[in-house]
Structures are given as structure tokens and as C-alpha cells.
């Protein structure tokens, strides 16, 4: 107890310096936490994917469509329980800045495959009945202030022209991981419009979503599907939803790696700042430590004093940083809107923030502690200020 009091007094002897160091720590730990959360948000789609869904797409690339008649053949594959399909619509709502994903889907089977989109029966029926209808996630609706019954105009980039949809329902995610930033429309309506206007572009789908009975058989069923269409005009590539989502994440891998590296650099920066503080503190107290040694305290005790003080400051700063992170993340979440469908500070991130603070405290005290435990008493006593 006495020791702790000594540490506390020591830590706040230079109030201004300690306060500044702590400000630095709070900023660093908080920035570290936010960066890791951003990284986590990138992987959110992967986390939210279900193990009972497979995605079948063209083997060439995602931009190549598959024929509609594959649906029937997919249903016949052993282990497949249901089949739905979706097209990326790629429309622009007012300006390019308002980006959000829109999928033209086969509504009844798609909603059945995605039970995590919780939609009231009334909304579901209204959507199924209206071919020009749309449903959106809660977050997206909140961002643009849409209410059920509103008209949503979209300017097509892949499918030319201006399209208008009536909002028929808003879904809530079953948990925090569910994407609430998408918009679903009727594939049938899109297809009919295309047939009327362009003829030959109709009856094609972007990806098939395949429901399977047994997650453990995912690899086997994927192989069966791809074998079925081998050497056809449109070969397929089937993978689990997780692998499919991961392939998107890995596209921006270079940027993600950079962000991760940068999140550690901030810890290094604060380490340098903190080490500086401890070195200065130790230098000023040279005479004191010499006195302590004269009184018979072991070198280990002096090291302990320094380590204790450093850890105390680092932990206080770290905890404060952690506490600031949570409200800041909430503000950030509001500001970015639907850019990141899910934005949550994970438990692991919080644990890492605290351990980062501890490491900073340890490393910062290492050099001064080693120096001070070895000082020559006579020299130390001679030293002034």
C-alpha cells in the first residue's frame, strides 16, 4: 500500500508532463482501437456469412452472367435444399456519393435463404406482391430517411436508364453482425424490362445462392455443382459464402495490410514519447535514487519504482483511451453511414488496447530502470538536478 502511494505521488510530481504523456497515450490507444475496428468492419461480411449457403458464379469472373436455366439443374444436385439468384444492380441514388449495394433477387426463395433479415409478415407480403417494390435494411432506411411507401429513384450504370422502386418493407438484422445496408428488388421486374428493351440480355443471372443441408458437405457439393457445368458454355465456380466474401476482402489486401501496419506505428510513436518521459524523470531523480541506495534499498527496488510508475501512467492512459474509444466509435459509425455495414469495437480489440498500453509502459521504463539500478552512489549524490 505504501509502495503504491509512493508510485502515485511520483507519477504526479510533474503534473504537466504526466498529463501531456497521458493525452498522448489516450490519443494513441484510441486511434489504435479505431483502426483495428475499421479493419474488423472490412471483414464483417465474412463474419456474417452462413455456412449453409454456397455461391455459384461464372468461372471467368463475377462480371459474367450465368443462364437462368441453371436454376433447375442446381436444384437437382444432391444435398441442395434451395436455390435463389441475384444480380448486382449497380444503381446510383442521386449522386455517386450515396453508394449502397442493390441486388435484384428472386424474392421468395432469397428471403427464405437469408433468415437473418427479419421482416414483418405484412412487409414481406407487400414486397412479394409488388413487382416494382423494394425492401431495404434498417440502417440504409435511416440514412436516407426513407419510409415505407416512398419512391426510390435509381440511375442505372449496368442497366441503362432511370428506375423507380416503391419501398415496401424495412428489415432488421437478427444480430449486430447482419448487414442492414442493402436494398433488394425483384429480379423478375428487371428481367422483363431488359427483355422489352434489349432482348438478348434477358434471362441471365449474376450469382446463384445455393442452400445446402449439411455444412460439412460444402466442399463436396461445390465440386458436384462445378462438375455438372464443366465444359459447358458457362462454366461455374462454387464456393462457400465465406470464401466468396473473403475474395472481396483480399482484393484490397494491400490497403488492409498498410492500415494494420500503421496501427502498430502509432503504438511505436507513443512508445518513443513515453520512453522520453521516463528517461527525463529518471535523470532528474538521480540524486534521490542514489540516496535510496545509500539507505540500503536494493537496485531491484529502484527498477521496480520506475517500472511501477511507468506502468501506472500507461495503464491510466490506456484505460482512459479505451473509455474514449467507445463513444468515438459510435460517432464514427453515424458519420460513415452505410460505408461499413457493421462497425463494432470487439472484445479482442479492447484486450489488445490494454495490452498495448502495458507493453508501452514496460518498454518505456526498461532503459531508465536498467541505468538507474546501476548508478554509482557517489556520482549520483554529486549530481545536481
Amino acid at each position: 500500500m505504501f509502495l503504491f502511494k509512493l508510485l502515485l505521488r511520483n507519477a504526479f510530481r510533474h503534473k504537466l508532463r504526466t498529463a501531456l504523456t497521458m493525452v498522448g497515450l489516450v490519443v494513441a490507444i484510441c486511434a489504435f482501437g479505431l483502426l483495428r475496428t475499421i479493419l474488423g468492419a472490412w471483414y464483417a461480411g465474412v463474419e456474417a456469412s452462413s455456412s449453409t449457403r454456397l455461391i455459384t458464379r461464372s468461372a471467368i469472373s463475377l462480371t459474367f452472367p450465368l443462364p437462368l436455366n441453371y436454376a433447375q439443374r442446381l436444384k437437382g444436385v444432391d444435398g441442395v435444399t434451395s436455390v435463389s439468384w441475384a444480380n448486382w444492380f449497380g444503381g446510383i441514388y442521386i449522386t455517386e456519393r450515396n453508394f449502397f449495394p442493390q441486388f435484384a433477387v428472386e424474392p421468395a426463395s432469397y428471403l427464405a435463404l437469408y433468415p437473418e433479415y427479419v421482416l414483418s409478415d405484412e412487409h414481406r407480403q407487400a414486397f412479394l406482391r409488388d413487382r416494382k417494390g423494394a425492401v431495404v435494411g434498417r440502417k440504409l432506411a435511416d440514412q436516407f430517411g426513407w419510409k415505407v411507401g416512398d419512391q426510390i429513384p435509381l440511375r442505372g450504370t449496368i442497366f441503362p436508364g432511370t428506375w423507380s422502386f416503391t419501398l415496401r418493407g424495412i428489415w432488421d438484422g437478427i444480430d449486430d453482425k447482419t448487414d442492414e445496408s442493402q436494398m433488394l428488388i425483384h429480379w423478375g421486374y428487371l428481367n422483363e424490362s431488359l427483355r422489352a428493351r434489349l432482348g438478348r440480355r434477358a434471362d441471365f443471372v449474376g450469382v446463384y445462392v445455393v442452400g445446402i443441408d449439411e455444412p460439412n458437405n460444402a466442399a463436396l457439393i461445390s465440386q458436384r455443382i462445378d462438375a455438372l457445368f464443366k465444359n459447358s458454355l458457362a462454366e461455374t465456380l462454387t464456393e462457400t459464402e465465406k470464401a466468396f466474401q473473403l475474395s472481396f476482402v483480399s482484393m484490397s489486401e494491400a490497403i488492409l495490410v498498410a492500415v494494420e501496419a500503421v496501427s502498430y506505428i502509432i503504438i511505436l510513436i507513443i512508445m518513443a514519447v513515453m520512453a522520453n518521459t521516463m528517461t527525463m524523470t529518471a535523470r532528474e531523480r538521480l540524486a534521490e535514487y542514489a540516496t535510496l541506495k545509500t539507505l540500503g534499498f536494493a537496485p531491484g527496488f529502484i527498477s521496480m519504482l520506475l517500472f511501477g510508475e511507468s506502468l501506472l501512467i500507461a495503464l491510466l492512459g490506456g484505460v482512459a483511451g479505451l473509455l474514449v474509444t467507445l463513444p468515438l466509435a459510435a460517432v464514427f459509425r453515424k458519420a460513415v453511414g452505410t460505408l461499413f455495414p457493421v462497425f463494432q469495437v470487439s472484445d479482442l480489440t479492447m484486450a489488445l488496447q490494454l495490452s498495448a498500453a502495458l507493453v508501452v509502459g514496460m518498454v518505456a521504463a526498461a532503459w531508465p530502470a536498467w541505468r538507474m539500478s546501476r548508478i554509482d552512489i557517489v556520482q549520483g549524490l554529486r549530481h545536481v538536478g
Partner: protein
Amino acid sequence: MRGLPLSYIARNLWVRRVTTLLTAAGMALVVYVFATVLMMSEGIRATLVATGQPNNVMVLRRGAGAEINSGIAREQAAIVDSLPAIATDALGRRLLSKEPVVLNNLPKRGSGKPSNVTVRGTSEVGLELRPQVKLIEGRMFRAGSSEIIAGQAVTKGFQGASLGESMRFAGRDWTVVGVFDGGRTGFDSELWGDSEQMMQAFRRTAFSSVVFRLADADAFDAVKAGLESDPRLTLEAKREVRFYEEQSEALAKFISILGTTLSVIFSIGAIVGAMITMFAAVASRIGEIGTLRALGFRRSAVLAAFLLESLLLSLAGGLVGLAAASFMQAVDISTTNFQTFAELAFQFRLTPQIALQTLVFALCMGFVGGFIPAWRAGRLKIVDCLREA
């Protein structure tokens, strides 16, 4: 009386080596992040801007924005082909290329992870339209055959893309007969083959884009107006330079905004470090300050001395950070451009402007961190100083 000599200021930093080193190291890290981000953003921009040629015009379907979204039917392409403003080469061929552009998901070397490569169908004329593209190995593909040539970055990054190897996609085996140097442009990340062969293999009925060279660069506005008002066409024309500039906008902007925000947040840490150091410097030299003042140096001279010390400290950090960042120029990186959805290889690029921006940023940190301590040093009373010493 004049200000304090610079050697006095510099020596003060030298006396407290460890502290100076640690503070400068913190600043160097911030500067490193700042400079690297600017270099990355500039690298992407420069790569894509260099992809365009000033006299070339790019025609896409209206509203498409990118080549892969676009579709130009053969009839429409033929109408564009008949424009009188198109230049001809020495052999009398019209400098116009109708190109199908598709994304192809191919495995990368090493990791085997698939990534999107742009496959472009083109012709001899297409090569002529892009004088920056030069074959460095092998030969040009023969028209009407399943031969392709690969950009340097593709050869390095993707399986089966070296000279003599073959790649399988769209139901065929394609032999790589040449490797070209795209001159640090987006073409480095592409595969080129015969236009008509690509149309058949990928079962396309429409081209993605039509590129042509204008005989007279000033005719662009007239040509654009003519194309876009033609009722038979639903196309839009852009200068090639402008088109590629737009392709780089979102990614370059994203990186620079993300990076600048991060650097500014990080700089708080470094500024705090500088402030701690300078406060300590002032506190340990109170007696000295008193003596200087008693000798007749003015308050402003003392303030300037401490401020200069802080600026010198940050300049040292800035230079170290910048030097470290300049090594990044040797690194090749590639990422997916989310506007085109395709892999783009580029390099970090350090321009004099970035170097200047970086150093100014470093000095700003030094100024902000050093001003309050220097101000306090200047405000101290002579009597108090001398009594305390």
C-alpha cells in the same frame, strides 16, 4: 541585442541526446506515415494518368463510367469508325481500335489466390494508339490466333503469364507469346489478345470501348458533340487522359483522406512528445535563461531560441522520416481499384512537392509543440530565474 547564435541552440539538443533522439524518432514515424500515404496516392494517380494519351478519345456507352460496364454494339462501333476526324498512320490505316474488355479471375503467383485481371481484345492498331507500350520479350500476338501478350506486372504477379507459358480461360488455352512494358501505366496490369478472338471466346456480342486518335486535337469538342447528339448512338466520348484520371480519383482520394486523417491524429502524439521535451528543456535551464536575460538578451530572443530548438528537432525528425519514406519508392505494390474492380500495379512516387509538404508538416508539429514552452521561457522574470538557479 541580436538573437542567440544557432550553435548554442543546436548544442542544447546534442547535450540531451537520448531525449532528442526519442522525440525525433516519434516525429519521424509520423512523418513517415504522412509521406508514404501521399506517395501512394500520387503513385496511383500518376500510373493512371500516364495511361491516357492526349490525342486519344475513348468512347463508352453513356453513363457506363468504366470499360467493364460498357457495351457498344457492332453497328454503333461502325458508325464511330466512319468519323472523318480520325487520324491515319503511315500505312494509311485508320487509328481506331474496337476493344472488348473483360475481367478475368486468375490465380496469383505464390499465394494462388484469385484476383481480377483486365483482359483486353485489341489489334496492331491498338498497340500503335498507345506508343508508351513496348514489347520487351517475345513478339506481338498474331491476328486470329489464341495468342496473348502480357503486361509486366501481370507476368510478375499471375500464374502462367510468363513468356512461353499458357493460361486457361474462357474455354481455351492461350499462349503467352510476348511480354510488354506499359511504361508504368495501367496497361502493365493487363493481358492483350486479338479483338475478334476475345469476342468469340467470351461470347460477347458487343465491344466495351472504342478508342481512336484525332487527327487534330482541337477537333475534340466538335467530335464529342457530333457523337453524343447522333440519335443512332447512346455513347459518350471522353479524352483518354480525362477518362483514366477519373478511374484513379476514388481510390487516390480514399487513400489520401484516410492517410491524412491518420497522420493528423498521430501528430498529436508527436506534438505532445515535443512539448514534454521542450518544457523539460526550459525547466532545466531556468538559471541559464535568467543569465541570458541579465546579459541583455530580450524576451523575444529567448522565445525565438527555444522555438528554433523545437523546429530544429522536428526538422531532424522530418528528414529521417522522409528518408525512410523515400526507400518505399523501390517497392512495387498492387491492389484492386474498386472503380474498375481490376488489379492495378503501381509504385510509391516521391515528388518535390510531396517532400516539401512533408517537411512543412514536420515543422508545423515542431512549432505547435514548441510554442507554449518557448512562450513560458520568454515570460520568466529575471529575478525568479536567478533565484531558482
